[in-house]
């Protein structure tokens, strides 16, 4: 049997961080007393009508722009009809055949569509299962009901669980940087469902898919998809067939259990929402949405890799922390003659570590270190005015108290000791004499023994010597082996 290839598409619900709900004036909230942010409209009293939230539309347009989607000139709101206590109108206002945006892309994954809708209220099922079946009672908190959502649906372009989780992280970062959502998976402001199927590698046809719900972290997303892929492969390899169903992920056990058909089997009887006119964004709204876009993570990663030659993981680290990336770019601009990847490594490596080592503050942009100061430091290291080790010491000083690196070097006497002025040569010779044993072993061909001598030199110079230079001086004195 041919190997079975994973085919994964994601459906992401993004709660928009607007001030008020999608169709009424109630404020959005999280973690407040139940049912304090409600009104006749979001409680679906008789006679009320929805009025679309303009800010939500603008945020939706920004997401559409960030995902490089086509925006429909007139998109249509539909009613999705179903009875459930979290849905007081008994229909959700969503979009159906003409969504806000279609045909986009993020990274290597195509976006099928993105549309606006309203969130359901929050159900609390009292009882052990935490789900409606088997619970003693169910309570409804309408604070969340009517929160604006953008639902993003990808094409089935992902080929593995880890890839899916990584892409979802990129999407979260993208939306976060737009500033349109809190994108907090635990709080539910970002919710990711996965459509999972397998097919013989190389096949163009799609296998029967299952839908995975309730994976409230990227780790669970990955684990849930992995578990489901394994299950599907086992079923097919045993000659079975995959049933189209919705599976609920239990983060405690890692199990996927089918949702009961009563919760699931719906004919939603979609029809155009007669209480709303078509959503026709003006040219100005479209332009504003495009102009509001910051440089998004995917673009930044591309630029850092292609133009600056950064390694993929470093580019990713910077792209997901835009303030740090900004700090990096300012440092790079000031650090003449220093390679971008050196600057990037210092920013994401030494500086990040030094910041973490202080009081857990790890944001370079918020620290006492000025980009110009770091640039000065890196230039001194580059020009071998100080050693790498001294550079780290100066950086620790900068993190602690800020200031000018040249002054710190001066004050601490960290200027590099070089072989040319004889001082270093003398220290090297003394270290060799003190470690005759090591010199002997080097002569016998054990290159590793050089470490003991270098260590002694570093100790003596308090790290002010350049490691490469110390090596060279030792080898010169031992002669070709």
């Amino acid at each position: 049997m041919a190997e079975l290839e994973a085919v994964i598409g994601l459906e992401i619900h993004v709660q928009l961080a607007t001030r008020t709900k999608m169709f009424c004036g109630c404020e959005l909230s999280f973690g407040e007393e139940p049912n304090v942010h409600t009104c006749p409209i979001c409680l679906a009293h008789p006679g009320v009508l929805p009025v679309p939230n303009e800010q939500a539309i603008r945020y939706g347009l920004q997401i559409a722009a960030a995902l490089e989607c086509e925006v429909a000139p007139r998109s249509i709101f539909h009613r999705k009809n179903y009875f459930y206590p979290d849905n007081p109108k008994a229909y959700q206002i969503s979009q159906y055949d003409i969504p806000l945006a279609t045909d986009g892309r993020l990274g290597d994954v195509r976006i099928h569509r993105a549309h606006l809708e309203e969130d359901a209220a929050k159900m609390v099922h009292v009882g052990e299962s935490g789900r409606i079946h088997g619970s003693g009672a169910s309570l409804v908190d309408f604070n969340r009901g009517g929160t604006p959502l953008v639902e993003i649906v990808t094409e089935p372009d992902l080929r593995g669980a880890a890839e899916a989780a990584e892409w979802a992280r990129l999407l979260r970062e993208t939306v976060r940087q737009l500033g349109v959502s809190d994108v907090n998976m635990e709080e539910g402001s970002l919710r990711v469902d996965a459509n999972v199927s397998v097919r013989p590698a190389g096949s163009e046809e799609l296998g029967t898919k299952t839908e995975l719900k309730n994976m409230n972290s990227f780790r669970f997303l990955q684990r849930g998809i992995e578990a489901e892929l394994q299950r599907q492969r086992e079923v097919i390899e045993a000659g079975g067939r995959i049933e189209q169903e919705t599976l609920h992920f239990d983060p405690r056990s890692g199990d996927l259990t089918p949702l009961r058909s009563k919760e699931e089997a719906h004919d939603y009887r979609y029809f155009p929402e007669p209480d709303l006119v078509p959503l026709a964004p003006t040219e100005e709204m479209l332009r504003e949405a495009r102009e509001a876009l910051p440089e998004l993570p995917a673009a930044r990663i591309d630029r850092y890799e292609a133009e600056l030659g950064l390694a993929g993981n470093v580019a990713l680290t910077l792209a997901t922390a835009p303030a740090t990336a900004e700090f990096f770019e300012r440092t790079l601009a000031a650090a003449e003659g220093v390679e971008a990847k050196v600057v990037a490594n210092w920013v994401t490596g030494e500086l990040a570590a030094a910041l973490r080592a202080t009081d857990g503050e790890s944001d370079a942009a918020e620290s006492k270190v000025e980009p110009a100061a770091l640039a000065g430091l890196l230039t001194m290291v580059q020009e071998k005015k100080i050693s790498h080790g001294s550079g780290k010491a100066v950086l620790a000083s900068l993190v602690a108290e800020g200031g000018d690196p040249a002054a710190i070097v001066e004050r601490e006497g960290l200027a590099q000791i070089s072989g040319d002025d004889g001082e270093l040569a003398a220290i090297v010779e003394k270290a060799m004499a003190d470690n005759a044993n090591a010199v002997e072993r080097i002569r016998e061909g054990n290159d590793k023994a050089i470490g003991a001598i270098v260590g002694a030199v570093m100790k003596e110079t308090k790290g002010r010597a350049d490691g490469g230079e110390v090596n060279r001086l030792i080898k010169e004195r031992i002669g070709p082996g």
Partner: protein
Amino acid sequence: MSELLELGVADTATKIASGEVSAAECFAAWREAAAGDELNAYLWSAEDGASEEPAHGPLGGVPIAVKDIFCTEGVPTTAGSRILEGYRPPYSATAVKRLDAAGARLLGKANMDEFAMGSSNENSAYGPVLNPWDRTRVPGGSSGGSAAAVAGGLAPCAIGTDTGGSIRQPAALCGIVGLKPTYGAVSRYGMIAFASSLDQCGPLTRDVADAALLLAWLEGRDPLDSTSVGIEGGIVPPHREDLRGLRFGVPAELAGDAVDAGVREVFEATLARIEQLGGELAEVTLPNAEHGISAYYVIAPAEASSNLARYDGVRYGMRSEAGGDLIEMYETTRAEGFGAEVKRRIMLGTYALSSGYYEAYYGQAQRVRTLITEDYVGAFSEVDFVVTPTAPSVAFKLGEKTQDPLAMYLGDLFTVPASLAGIPAISIPAGLAEPPGGGPRLPVGFQIAAPAFAEQRLLDAAHALERAIGFDARPGGEDG
């Protein structure tokens, strides 16, 4: 005292404004009349001891009957349904607020067919309304309580809602004026939805001038209703006295329709009257109007099936005592709370929207709707108005059509097309006709439809025609 009850909206407001009579005195007189309601026109009427605060605004102190489909803060609002028994809305409809801001005072909540579904008012959970002209007959529906209250001397004016004729037809059957404005002219906020793409609020009054006066305060863009736009330029009192230069289209299709002889006679006499006033008659064609009823009885129930799904016993209104789990509670509450006609339409609409049938029913009905709208656009390129009888017959007997829903639906054939096209239409009393089978003569309505947002022209023409007709019969009057 009783002479106060003879006055319409404009005259009442003038009398109060001049200080000839106080608003409280006026309200008390009307309240007493409403309290003596023998027609079952009201589901609720104002308590004794009305506000003594002085009248203000252009409708200062004028009492008004409001169809029970409009939410009124703190005042029972049932839409004629058992399922909303005991419901007191936490807010008021925009139409109610606008009238209140103009100085009108809520006299009572008028009976109606349950959720505005019906043409006879026999579908009210709280009993049928009786026609003041003949209490063995229906007042029409669904705004039957509003129409009977105005015609029966229980209110100087009323507002109702019209989805497929629910203002115009009861106005016709009760011998008063009923106006359905253009869809979007008046806010729907707080008007309990039946069929959202068709529902529209309008006045039921004794004469056209009063209808204009109420419309002037009702219309307007409402930020709470995305589909509302108001009427550009507003509405001023109608003053026209002739119809010179105006063309009235009579649909050719009318000839074949089953219109009662008495109604046809009054209709033709009214056409002659139009010519006497200098108006011109022309034949127009509305070839798709004959499919109006079919399309309407797909679209309206479809929207209703969704609009009425919120009545589940969870948050407000009645809840079945039967117990059981959530689904059973939904089911028993809805089984006990809704009447037969409402259930019939919910089932029709649910079916029409269901997967696999949507295109054949809802999709097709929407296409018919578009064709009918285009028919009117075509007609209005040749004429200023399209005129028909409002209803094919005079008021029928209580119970006469209750066993035959289809016959009842067919009574809407002249009113439904304008609803589907979203255009304004008015019914004015045009005369009396003997019902088939004999008996005292009953009012006949004449319907005038105009292009979208041409309410001013429509009111002007209706006013001129009304003056010429000089309809002054009263229930229990000449024949009664």
